[in-house]
């Protein structure tokens, strides 16, 4: 396990060092961005809508019962931007994109495509890892912004349409604006950036370390998803704690 973590840090370091080459690989970065957006946008929309809705549904009746119905907007707003948006989107991306990265790079490793790159003096980190890492670090925070907005809307719809809650849009969004600050959204984006690095580095690392045939590729995909989710949840706590220490 420690060897894997060390290798992942090393891969991250190499990618960071190669960052000035990102402009040269802009076409591949754009392709990856399209891949991530295209593969995830609809799913992100559905997921976020229902997360926002469930949040309102769970908290709404309890708050109404205590005469605190005007706080629903704030609760959904804060939960979505500080926690659920970044974490759920990152888990979704780990499942859809991290696994695809592990599978694609893993199959290239198994079928000697990466060896072929090396013989042509093409660094696989520059050619394969850097574009993916840059793309996911741009795409995931954007998806999280989208997720937050859709999640807020889902919460608003349930708060207005559910008879047990039944508050107005003005009341919901008024409280949301009162409670949620821009820095809360930035906290969520900061988290999502960290999670994007985790998903990208874990997916690419697993791919590059694939051994064996199709079974090896399957193993890499599974490990990439599981390891990403575990690391996301651990890092979620660490980043939250750090943000609390430094900001509040």
């Amino acid at each position: 396990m420690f060897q894997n973590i060390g290798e992942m840090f090393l891969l991250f370091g190499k990618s960071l060092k190669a960052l000035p080459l990102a402009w040269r690989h802009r076409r591949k970065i754009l392709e990856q961005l399209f891949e991530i957006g295209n593969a995830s946008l609809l799913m992100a929309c559905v997921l976020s809508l229902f997360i926002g809705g469930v949040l309102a549904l769970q908290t709404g009746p309890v708050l109404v019962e205590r005469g605190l119905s005007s706080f629903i907007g704030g609760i959904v707003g804060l939960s979505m931007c500080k926690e659920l948006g970044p974490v759920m989107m990152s888990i979704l991306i780990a499942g859809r994109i991290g696994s695809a990265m592990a599978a694609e790079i893993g199959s290239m490793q198994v079928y000697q495509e990466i060896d072929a790159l090396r013989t042509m003096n093409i660094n696989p980190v520059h050619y394969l890892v850097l574009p993916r890492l840059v793309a996911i670090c741009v795409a995931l925070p954007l998806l999280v912004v989208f997720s937050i907005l859709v999640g807020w809307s889902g919460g608003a719809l349930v708060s207005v349409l559910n008879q047990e809650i039944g508050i107005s849009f003005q009341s919901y969004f008024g409280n949301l604006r009162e409670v949620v600050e821009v820095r809360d959204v930035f906290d969520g984006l900061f988290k999502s950036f960290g999670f994007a690095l985790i998903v990208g580095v874990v997916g690419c690392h697993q791919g590059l370390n694939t051994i064996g045939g199709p079974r090896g590729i399957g193993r890499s995909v599974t490990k990439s998803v599981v390891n990403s989710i575990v690391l996301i949840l651990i890092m979620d706590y660490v980043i939250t704690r750090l943000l609390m220490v430094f900001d509040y």
Partner: protein
Amino acid sequence: MGSNQETPGVRVTVSGLRKSYDGHPVLKGLDFDVAPGEIFVVMGPSGSGKSVLLKHIIGLELPDEGEIFVNGDPVIGTQITDKYRMAMVFQSGGLLNSLTVGENVGLYLSEHQLESAEAIERIVAEKLKLVGLANLQHHVPSELSGGMKKRVALARALAVEPQLILYDEPTAELDPLNAITIGEEIYNLNQRIHVTSIVVTHDRDLAFGVADRVAIMVEGEILVVGTPEEIRSTSNTAVREFITADFNLNKTSKTP
């Protein structure tokens, strides 16, 4: 493609090369020397360590012991592909499936920004024509047969304008006609640009057909090195067994 002067072959020297995987020795102290422009074939049964040897020569693997030199420069511990233009034709072709045939062939030139897009397009067309696959630029590797993939891999190797080409089982999984075509291309290429070629194969026809010298490798050891004629007339039992192996069946006719 450059002339003889532009792409002179390199000398390859392998000395005391040893490699083990999980305690199992795969290369047991190999020593040989390949002259510039020579076609040197390493022939031996499957699993004798031939492909591992090639990976060491191009720097994809590190040996436990021993040295490899290209024109006197050590391969180990250096990025030898920075100094010499080398190419390897992999057993599977090693084509990037996400790219078109043309992009695969021009990959070295485009990634190292050695030529303009128009020039790359021209060079790609030229190399593909050279291997008999003109107008296939826009196809993807999955649309090609095994033989075509190997020829595209050869075209990709040519685009590097290599000083050394390594061929890993170039005729494996090919029908006899395609195998002959590939063998002829290896030979013609060597005649045209005098590139040093190291071919590993278990195909006896290919080895004796194209080689200047043949090394017989069995279980990680080179048993004998010589010209095809010398190998054919060797008295070494293990070598004779390998080069003369044939079916020994007592077949009875089943036709009515």
